[in-house]
C-alpha cells in the first residue's frame, strides 16, 4: 500500500463557510482524483463553485488539508505549483478573458510560466488548432460569441499543460452544435477532469463517475446500470437536445 504513488489531488476533511455566514457551506469533504473523469452535480448555491475555489487556493478552508501528489498544500509556493497542474475553467468565460486578442490571451499563461515569446506563441497556436480555433488568433476576444469565448477560455487553460481540469458548468448557454463540439474535445483530451454541470446528458457523455454536493457533503452516486425512461415533449421534430 505505502509504495503506491499518491493521487494527483486529494482533499482531506475540508470544511468551509463564507465569512459572515454562520452555517458551514461545506463539511468534511473527502475526495481524491488521479486520472478519472468526474462529474459534480447539486442545486444552485450548494457550494460547487466554492469547492473549486478552495481547491485552487482562491479560498482558504476553515479546516482540512489539500494534498497535491501526497504533499500538503500550505505555503504560497505549493499553491503556485498546484495552480500549474490544475486548470480552472470559470462558470462565466467573460471573467476569464482579458487580453485584446485571442492569441495574446492564450499566450499569457505560457509567458508567465517563463516561456520565450516565440515558444509561447507556438504553444498557443498549437492549442488553438487542437480546439479547431485556427483562424481565431487575431480576433478580438471581447467580440466573440458566448460559445466561442468558452472554447477560447478552455484554450487559455490547456496552453498551460495542466494535468487536471476543473470545469464549472462548461455547457451553459451553448447551442446544441457547440455543445457537441465541446463533448468531442473533452473526449479527445487525455486529461483527468472534474465537471460541474446541471446537464446530466452532458455529464453522461464526458464522465465516468458522478458525485453530488448536498447539504454540505460530497457523496459519490451509486453507479446503477444505465437507465432508460420515456420522455415526452411536443415539437420533437425540431432537431433538439436535452439539457443545455
Amino acid at each position, binding site marked *: 500500500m505505502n509504495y503506491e504513488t499518491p493521487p494527483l489531488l486529494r482533499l482531506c476533511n475540508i470544511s468551509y463557510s463564507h465569512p459572515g455566514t454562520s452555517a458551514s457551506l461545506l463539511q468534511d469533504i473527502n475526495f481524491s482524483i488521479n486520472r478519472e473523469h468526474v462529474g459534480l452535480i447539486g442545486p444552485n448555491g450548494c457550494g460547487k463553485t466554492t469547492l473549486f475555489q478552495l481547491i485552487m487556493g482562491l479560498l482558504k478552508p476553515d479546516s482540512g488539508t489539500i494534498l497535491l501528489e501526497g504533499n500538503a498544500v500550505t505555503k504560497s509556493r505549493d499553491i503556485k505549483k498546484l495552480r500549474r497542474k490544475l486548470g480552472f475553467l470559470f462558470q462565466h468565460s467573460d471573467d476569464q478573458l482579458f487580453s485584446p486578442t485571442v492569441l495574446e490571451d492564450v499566450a499569457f499563461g505560457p509567458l*508567465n510560466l517563463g516561456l520565450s515569446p516565440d515558444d509561447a506563441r507556438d504553444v498557443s497556436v498549437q492549442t488553438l488548432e487542437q480546439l479547431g480555433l485556427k483562424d481565431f488568433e487575431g480576433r478580438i476576444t*471581447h467580440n466573440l460569441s458566448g460559445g466561442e469565448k468558452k472554447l477560447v477560455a478552455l484554450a487559455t487553460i490547456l496552453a*498551460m499543460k495542466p494535468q487536471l481540469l476543473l470545469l464549472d458548468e462548461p455547457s451553459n448557454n451553448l447551442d446544441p452544435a457547440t455543445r457537441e463540439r465541446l463533448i468531442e474535445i473533452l473526449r479527445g483530451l487525455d486529461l483527468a477532469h472534474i465537471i460541474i454541470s446541471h446537464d446530466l446528458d452532458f455529464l453522461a457523455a464526458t464522465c465516468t463517475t458522478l458525485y453530488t454536493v448536498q447539504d454540505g457533503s460530497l457523496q459519490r452516486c451509486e453507479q446503477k446500470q444505465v437507465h432508460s425512461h420515456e420522455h415526452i415533449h411536443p415539437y420533437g421534430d425540431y432537431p433538439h437536445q436535452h439539457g443545455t
Partner: protein
Amino acid sequence: MISEPFSSGSTLFHCSDARVKVIGGTVLSLVLATTTSFAVAMIGFLFTSLLLLISRPSPGLILKRIATVNIFTLFLLFSLPLTYGGADIVQLQYFQISLDGMRIACLIAIKTNGILFCFLALLATSSTVSLGHALERLRLPRKLVFLLLFSYRQLFVIHQEYLRLHRAAQLRAFTPSNSLHTYRTYSHLFGMTLVKSWNRAERVHQAMILRGFDGRLIPLKQPQLRKSDYLLLASLLLISLILAGFSLNNPV
C-alpha cells in the same frame, strides 16, 4: 472590499435626518477648517470627539481609519519642524528644529482629526443612498446626484468584475513585478473592466427607460423632519457659530 461599516446602527445620529447632518457637519467642518486659532481647534476637536463617541463606531475599524488618515499628518509632524524655517529655531545637535513648523504641524494634526471625527460621526452614519437623496433635496444639481447614486450602485459590480479578472490572471501564473509585462497586464485587466462598464451602461440605461425612467429618481422613502432633527441642527449650528466667533477674535 468596499463597504460602509459605520452606516448601520441605532444611535441618535443614525436615526437623524441626513439633510440635518449634511448641513450641520459641513458648517462645523468649515469652521474647523478655516480657523487658525489653537484654542478653537482644540475645543472643536474635543467636541467632535464627543460626537464620535455618541455615534458608537466599532473601535477596531475606527482606529484603522484614523490611522490611515494620519499617515500624512505624521509625515508633516516629522518634516515640517525640519523644513519650515522661520525665526524660532532650536539647534538640536545636527538638526535645526523650527518651532513654528512644530506649531503648524500640531495645529494641522488637531484640525485634521477634528474634521475627520465630525465626518465619521455625522456623515458616515448615513448610507450613501440617503446622503444622495438628502443632497438632492438640498438642491444640488439633479444630474450630479444621479451620477453619485448610480456610480455608487455600480461600484460593487465593477469592482467584483475587476477582482474576477484579476483572479483569472493569478490562476494563469501571473506574478506582479517591475516589468512592462506587469504594467501591460494591469492595463488589460483595467481596460477590459472599462469596456465592460461601458457596455453595461447602455444595457442598464435601456433597462431603466423600459421601466419608465425619464431622468428623475424618485425616492421610495420621503423622510420627514422631526423635532429631534431640528434640535440637532440648531445645536450644531449654535456650536459652529460660537466657535466661528471665537476664531475671528483670536486669530492665533
